[in-house]
């Protein structure tokens, strides 16, 4: 039986990494986004009031995953739109259509737990394990 989708944060001396897994690449992209959200907003309650759609292109699924996480970082840092939910609309090896749902940062209700500089390519993993898909991404903090 395929493992239930999920994520966990992994240790790195200077920074932090995430692992995500699921039945298919779309679930992995969703779980990786949830892992990143947990790092950026911590336990702050964020509502899905606004949404931001995007189409990303990449050389392979790994590059797309890094690009997707960097879009979430961009939205929260520059547009000050904190993420609540994510939707993966379409995904193949070179193209991702997805949506971030969230809301504008309100300092009285939200606290950004951490600034994430970027999702990196260091030891990047996005693979079919035969028992579902598995990804690993390190983040630069």
């Amino acid at each position, binding site marked *: 039986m395929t493992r239930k989708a999920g994520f966990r*944060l992994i*240790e*790195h*001396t*200077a*920074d*932090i990494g995430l692992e995500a897994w699921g039945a298919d690449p779309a679930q992995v992209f969703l779980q990786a986004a949830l892992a990143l959200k947990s790092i950026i907003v911590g336990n702050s309650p964020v509502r899905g009031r606004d949404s931001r759609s995007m189409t990303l292109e990449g*050389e392979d699924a*790994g*590059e797309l995953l890094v690009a997707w996480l*960097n879009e979430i970082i*961009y939205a929260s*840092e*520059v547009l*000050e739109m904190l993420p609540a939910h994510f939707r993966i609309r379409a995904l193949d090896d070179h193209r991702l259509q997805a949506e971030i749902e969230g809301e504008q*940062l309100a300092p009285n209700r939200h*606290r*950004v*737990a*951490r*600034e994430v*500089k*970027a999702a*990196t*390519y*260091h*030891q*990047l993993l996005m693979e079919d394990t035969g028992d579902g898909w598995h990804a690993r991404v*390190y983040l*630069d*903090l």
Partner: protein
Amino acid sequence: MTIKLQKIDRYRWRIPQEGDMRTEGLVFASETMIQSLRQDQSLEQVRNVATLPGIVGPSMAMPDIHWGYGFPIGGVAAFDADEGIVSPGGVGYDINCGVRLLRSELEAEELRPRLQKLVDGLFQNVPSGVGSHRHDFKLTLAEERRVLEQGAAWAVRQGFGSEGDLDHIEAGGALPGADAERVSERALERGRAQLGTLGSGNHFLEVQEVEEVYHEPAARVLGLFPGQVTISIHTGSRGLGYQVCDDFLKVMHKAARKYGISLPDRQLCCAPLSSPEARDYLAAMAGAANFAFANRQMITAWVRDTFGQVLQKSPSDLRLNVIYDVCHNIAKWEEHLIAGRKRRLCVHRKGATRAFPPGHPETPSVYRQIGQPVLIPGDMGRYSYVMVGTAEGMAETFGSCCHGAGRVLSRRAAQKKARGQDVVGELAARGILIRAAGRSTVAEEISGAYKDVADVVDVVQQAGIGLKVARLRPMAVVKG
């Protein structure tokens, strides 16, 4: 992977050239440090860098080496202008993250009664933490482009500091060849609200006391004396630099394939120095580096204002002069003597500091007899060091030295260790005041999360690649 290590002497370790390595690895470390380095992947990263085309001399690591992305943090590697490459991963996301040290005419004892007021003022006037910025300063896109091309000089022209400051900054506060046209709109967008901000994580602003002088003549030239108040500023190019790095990693993945460069880690992606991809990256990187110089210049001006306001003293009484400002994430064109021949090399320093020797033309004329100042921050509970570059370092490490203490605990492990501990209260009991935007930052930055920087600088001194001048003890720290 087990990495072969050969002990050369007490402070030098060789990773012998084998497999796809084009040169050997050279690690500066004590026996104790090597034991802990074997636990993570940083030595493998030294090995990986040694596989890159056109590397000249060994792939090196300073004693503050720890596990990074692609390159180890503490890594130094030089590449030949014709055969070599440039790698954004060898510079890092925080392009020209660096340290600036200011001196003063104040003695720690006279400052102590006003210290709380001072740290509150600094916390108020210098934006720190996620998303904070000054409301009285806005940057237009046209001005931002000028920042990228002019660096610290742009800030001076806007009234932040004086012309004299520029003589005491690496490269005069502006790397040549910067081109704002090579920087993406998104990078400009990320940077616009972040010029003049400290950021979070390990960035800080620290008020210090000169606790010990090791080299009296050099200290005198730098204007340092025991009991004196100094100020350190540690920050970089903020979101603009992170975005430049991310943009060019994509470019370099394609370039590595195009030029047939095989990579042991995707984060090491790179392009030949003679390629248009490399030229574009170096022009964008120089722009981001200049943004960082301007950033530290603006923060300097706000530090001076705050000291003046709190202590009711004039700038000429305070004399908060820049001692020096060094980059520790950068790739630079430099001339080095290799086997008796002058060669133009692209030197990558990823978490390492340039440390040019006495007499070098790029060392400011006032410091030419003692060597370029090297600023090495430790952790917030212990001390930082001022060193100067040496002729031995120039010959052996392309004039490079360590940049800090180096983490030993992950952030989560540090938080766990700090749990139940009153970190702020314990530091206050030892006379160190902390103001931080985020509580978790303080827990993650506890002393125990870092190597003892004294051990790091001792290795540097014993190996002869840097010379200790003074030790600075923190009095007050502003964190993000």
